[in-house]
């Protein structure tokens, strides 16, 4: 039942957003910056992303850092975050908005090793889909929070056997962030 409800909501969001395509054509491109903290299968991290939005659709791409595996400056787990947000009610002048979020994250760091180490990397890929809430503080600035679910695949390099092994599983992603839209048009909120 949970899966059916989730599928229904995702379908609803998608159709609802697509139905507004005639409005979207009139919209200008809005550029912005995302700063977010996220907690996922790979631990907790932060990201800064650049985003571009046209009407209800927003795409973001940027670097990510993880604090969970961070042990020294030379082994900083770095990666990237990319994703898509669709705001079905974008033309409503409400402070509180909801959105559909598709998110992809990648992280790489030196493979786990305590002696005779090489510079081989461990990698984790995370792909999630879910919903978020955005609260507009001003017409340029908004707070957001999202809950996503999906999967992960990790590729671990074993320094002892010199082989790479992959493991996959289910994933969760919790994200809190701030979005600043640089050239957003002034709007009034109800």
């Amino acid at each position, binding site marked *: 039942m949970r899966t059916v409800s989730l599928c229904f909501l995702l379908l609803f969001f998608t159709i609802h957003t697509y139905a507004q395509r005639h409005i979207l054509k009139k919209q200008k491109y809005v550029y912005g910056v995302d700063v977010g903290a996220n907690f996922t299968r790979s631990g907790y991290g932060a990201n800064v992303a650049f985003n571009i939005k046209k009407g209800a659709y927003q795409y973001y791409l940027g670097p990510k850092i993880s604090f969970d595996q*961070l042990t020294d400056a030379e082994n900083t787990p770095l990666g990237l975050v990319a994703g898509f947000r669709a705001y079905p009610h974008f033309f409503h002048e409400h402070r509180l908005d909801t959105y559909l979020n598709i998110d992809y994250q990648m992280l790489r760091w030196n493979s786990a090793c305590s002696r005779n180490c090489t510079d081989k990397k461990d990698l984790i890929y995370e792909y999630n889909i879910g919903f978020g809430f955005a609260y507009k503080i001003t*017409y340029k600035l908004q707070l957001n929070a999202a809950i996503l679910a999906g999967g992960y695949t*990790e590729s671990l390099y074993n320094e002892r056997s010199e082989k790479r092994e992959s493991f996959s599983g289910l994933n969760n992603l919790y994200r809190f962030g701030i979005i*600043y839209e640089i050239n957003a048009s002034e709007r009034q909120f109800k």
Partner: protein
Amino acid sequence: MELSMKSMPLKDNLNKLWLLLLLFTFSSCKKNDIGVINNLNSGIIDIIGHGGSGFNSIINPLPTNSWESIKRAIDGYGADGVEVDVQLSKDGVLILYHDIALESLTNCDGCIRNINSGDILNCEYDYDYSFGKQNIIKLEKVLGRFADYKPKPSIYLDLRSDNSCDPTISPFLTEYSDAIEQIISRYNANDFVYVISNNKVLLGLLAFKIPGLKILYSANNVQEGVLTALADSYYGIILDANNASKDDVSFAHKFGLRVALFGMKSKRKILENLKKHPDLVQTDDIPLTMSLLN
């Protein structure tokens, strides 16, 4: 009511945010000085995954003692070994499971000791976030897999002899020690299998039946551990990391006893315990422990 919201100056706030992020990053980057390791393991601290690749948590979603968790520790991270919890089923099969009751972690009910292995092996773990469902496994699966590895990973068997479901079934220690003797003999595993227990009767039986078996006595404190281990010629002792100091570890080393520490998960705790220079650590975060040692 309508509110006209205009953009507020953000420069100061963003500067503060960046400063906070930088401070957080650099606070995590400070030098981890473990010093020159002085122990009985040629200056090496072996890294052993607790229950496989660490105890089940939100960032370690594989069930403890599950096949996927053990494989991830050894094949994925290249850990020096794993610690697994061993119990004896009703029909005398050695099963890997941590808790006393099956219902606490799986979709089954009862105690391992009261159920036949055929039924136990069908039990699926509840807190399982792998794509395929993880069942309870036999010890034999682990030894069968790793007996041919070169080098062989160390397998630490934490022998659990509690049976709160039906105390009348205990004592079953003769049958338990027989099962361990047989499996060690079958896989010629005396060189890579270690046993851990605080049950002196069980350890006594094992020491008698399997000459040269490496036994770690699970002690409440270092004095008790050293006295018991010396009296019964054990390989070493295992201590709760929260109750063991660097002096305790050195004290056991003076008597030629290996020291294992368990109970560490956070970076601070792992680092604190690596500085005690034990011979091995049972960790819940293998990659972090490896990075700290590197």
